[in-house]
């Protein structure tokens, strides 16, 4: 249904400017995408606030939910710089966010959502010269929610700022720095059955858990590809 109005959940002209995939392939990816780019966030907005709003578009009874949130960080200071990625388990949830959440307020700012090709290693960092987002390089206005234009911060936000500045000081780069969020349910009993060939003693437990672990860790890695 969309002859009379344009649906809000169509991909916009937003794109990852550094993506190397061609337009056709990008469109294919977007038509299945479970990831959203969220922009115009306050630097002080936490992942939990984002979770609270975006979980309203989740469909857990359909196998969905929020898989993970990746906070966009200033490359140099490791502090939030006003964007993030929200990844769901299903495409329908990402579309619902486009229709119902994009253009509404979070933490008293109107946020925008765009379908994204999917998180890739390194994309959590700002690409501006000074480490933050490019748009904040050129911004002329005073925006307290995005660091103002100097060190002035509103009184109430001083405490929040301190927490924010410390929160991601431990942020890592490289493979495995960002959690996967947990994949599909997997049968665990298969492993156990193999272990039952002889009588089990407590000592066996270690081996078994290690087998399970390797398998699941591989899965997590595979997801990151």
């Amino acid at each position, binding site marked *: *249904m*969309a*002859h*009379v*109005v*344009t*649906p*809000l959940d*169509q991909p*916009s*002209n937003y794109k990852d400017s550094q993506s190397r995939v061609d337009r056709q392939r990008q469109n294919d990816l977007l038509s299945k995408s479970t990831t959203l780019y969220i922009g115009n966030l306050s630097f002080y907005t936490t992942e*939990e*606030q984002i*979770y*609270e*709003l975006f979980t*309203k*578009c989740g*469909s*857990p*009874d*359909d*196998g*969905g939910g929020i898989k*993970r949130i*990746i*906070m966009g960080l200033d490359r140099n200071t490791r502090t939030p710089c006003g964007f993030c990625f929200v990844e769901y388990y299903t495409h329908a949830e990402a579309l*619902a966010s486009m*229709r*119902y*959440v994009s*253009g*509404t307020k*979070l*933490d*008293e700012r109107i946020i*925008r959502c765009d379908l994204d090709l999917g998180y890739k290693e390194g994309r959590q960092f700002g690409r501006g010269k000074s480490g933050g987002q490019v748009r904040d390089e050129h911004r002329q206005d005073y925006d307290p929610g995005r660091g103002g234009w100097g060190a002035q911060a509103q009184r*109430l936000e001083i405490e*929040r700022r301190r927490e924010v500045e410390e929160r*991601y000081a431990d942020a890592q780069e490289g493979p495995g720095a*960002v*959690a996967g*969020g*947990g994949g599909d*349910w*997997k*049968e*665990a*009993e298969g492993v*156990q059955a193999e*272990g039952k060939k002889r009588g089990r003693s*407590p000592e066996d*437990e*270690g081996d078994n*858990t*290690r087998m*399970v*672990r390797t398998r*699941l*860790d591989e899965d997590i890695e595979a997801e990151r590809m």
Partner: protein
Amino acid sequence: MSYERRGGGNRRRHRDDYDDRRRDSYETPDDKLKIAIIKLGEVDPVEELPRLQKQIRDLVPVNVANISEAFRIGVTEQPYKIPYYAALLRLLHDRPEGEVDSEGPSLGRQVLEDFWKGFQAYLDKLAWRETRLCIHFFAHLTVAHLISPESLFALLQAFTAVLDEFGVSHGRAKRAAMCAAEGLMIGGPTLKLHSSSGVADIMNAIQAFNDTTISAKWLVQPIIKIFSDVVKIENGDELLDTMLYALETLNDSDFAQTATSFPQPYASYIDPDPSITPFNIPSVLVPPEIIELDGLSTDSEEEAQVKKDEWPEYFLRLFDNEVTPDPNTPAGYAVRSALLDTLDIFEVNRKECARLLLEYPKWNLPGTFKPKPGAPVDIEPAPGKDWQLESTIIETIIGALLILPESSHKSVYYISLITELCKLSPSTVGPAVGKSIRKLYGSLSEGLDVEAARRFAEWFAVHMSNFGFQWVWKEWVPDLALTVQHPRRAFMRRALEFEIRLSYHDRILKTLPEAMQAPDAFTIAEQAPGPNFEYDDPASPHHDAAQSVLNLFRGRAKADDVISHLDSLKTTLETSDEGHINVDAIVRSIAVQSLLHIGSRSFSHLLNAIERYLPLLRNLASGGASSTGGSGNAEAKAGILTEAAAFWKLNRQMVGIVFDKLMQYQIVDPTDVVTWTFINGSTVGQPSELAGPLSLSAFEWDLMRGALDKANGRVMIARRKVAALRKEDDDTRARAKARANDNPMEVDADAKPEEETPVVDNPALTTALKAFTSLTREQKAALSRTLEGFVSSLAPAATDSNPNPHSRTVITEQGWNNRANWGKDEWNAWETWGWYRQFCRAYSPYLRSYSTTLTTVSFARFQGSIDPAAELLQKTFNVAIGQDV
């Protein structure tokens, strides 16, 4: 492709409207005509009709298919314009002056015949809304003498026939009844002249169906009186009821009110040339519903059904009949159904939806709504109308938002739509929203259903988050005198908790009057939500042990090393002075809390901590060395949940998130969460003043719903996987077979087709089926555990631990009437009953699938019992699974 134009000046664009999403390039003359038809009435539909008619005729050669497609789009996507499309089609039936060749059907007739084919296609797909809106169109055309009344009768009867189908679902019957009833409302003036007994037959058929829905109505009323079987409520109406009342009123006056309820722009035209024979709608049959049989039964009971049940729809009334129309009247029904259709159709674009809702009066009869403030008053208000547009719109949206057991779209859609309306016209919509909030708040003490109350709190918080958290809390200060678990006080607490989640504690605290800020007001949390690491204090026992574990985590020690460290810690504790205490529990507590501490900075930190130490968590879940392996040890898993809840006791949002991810990473199962919640949920993050005997409030319900949805969602995924693999298999076989058939060497391929395709399933499918079986078992266990939890909370035996003594008093009429004197235990018990109702109606398809087992396990003990609680438990369950009659 969209026909919406940018610019035009009549529509406000916001800076966040960054929708440069389409670039239509070249438009053919046919495209242009189609757009012109779809955009009929941008300024004044009646004025535009003759011009548009000419434009249609002027484009030669005539492309009937193009014109009728434009009509179909117009009718099914802009239902408020249907009367004007009927008028346009009426004009197209006239022979243009000076036309030489008057042979053959008129253009209007050709378009109508082609339009009908489109209708048949909608019906074949069971596209109910489109089908119903086409019937509106046909009904108008009948009044305009372009369609024969007998053929419209036959069409409507095809829909009432659905109501008599054996085992018809509520959803199908409801939609069919709406098709017949709305067709009758609009076409009534002509139909009744033709056959008044035919009209009565249609109404009787709908009435007869409606009579069968009484017990279902009992379960989904938004204002509940648990003790009563009466389904008529004050301040609310059920959809089919309103439809029947409106029809009765219309019929009593021989449909004279149709003309004052639905615009009939064609009525002023002279009757068409009598030589034109009206179109006879060909007879149709409503096709049966397609039931997908994927044959995935897992045990002796029927397979878990996926399709959600549909229920009677109650809409709350928030305003008086002078302010907003009474939907039990013809005009009121017409307004509400038009607004509901708009909500539904424009769900894809809430901004456009908001604009169209505010423009709605233009499409209804003049004088229906009060003019906009400041607009020239040149129209007399229609008698008995003159309603407030914004209140009507908000009332309808809130009604749709609070439909039980769930709204047809996600609740955040309705919430965002109200936000857009407020942005478009703050001075008129704002007050309507404020009044609605007060009205709903007031109904909290009159039995507003607990799920409706939860959605109300959710709407309130998100709405306030969009409008600077400006609410005049002061007016509710007197309610602080109510008992602490009174629904109004529970609402305030919940709304504030939700607001804090979207914002932060200090910000929300600032918005409250002093009386509500006080800790002993139990309205807002005393401190900002943060972690609560029990071993942080150097004076606390095991502080040093916890520090050692914490240091391992901080140093990113390997999981195995942490496990061996914990083993040695255990040994130390066992040999210490207090050897009799539960050492396993202490070690688990230290490990879980320390891990959560490492992951407490953010949701991502939590995920990283869990993923890095999955082996450790699995080890803990299996009860350490005393493991039974496999799905872990129930006591150990409950212990993990307890520690998580203790660590995040000041932040209940995080409790929900941690539980969700512990299930996601398969550390605990949904059943563990359900069990844990019934026993421990009400102690989380609440001052002890709020705690009480075994009961369930909205927070615990959210935890439980999270667990049930996880279990059901997994079955859903597994089911899809199996279906996809089966299809893949079938395709592979078909291809192999086709190849064999194509191969000329295998002449006798056809002779032995069966042997050609070995029935060995592929291993992926075997695995998927096995997973499906495990997950269905877990689903059944989670549902069973939930039912058990409710049974033991609501009909406790005297010997049960911590029974609520009031679970039986609150369900009596006397008890309810005495609610002004209820204390927190009574309200807790009442709320628990409310969640039980929600559990039964929201999960009814699943409960039905497993009903044999569930009733045996949970209800067998009540055999011959006269305990009213036991009876109500069973009655509610039976109504939910449709076995009460």
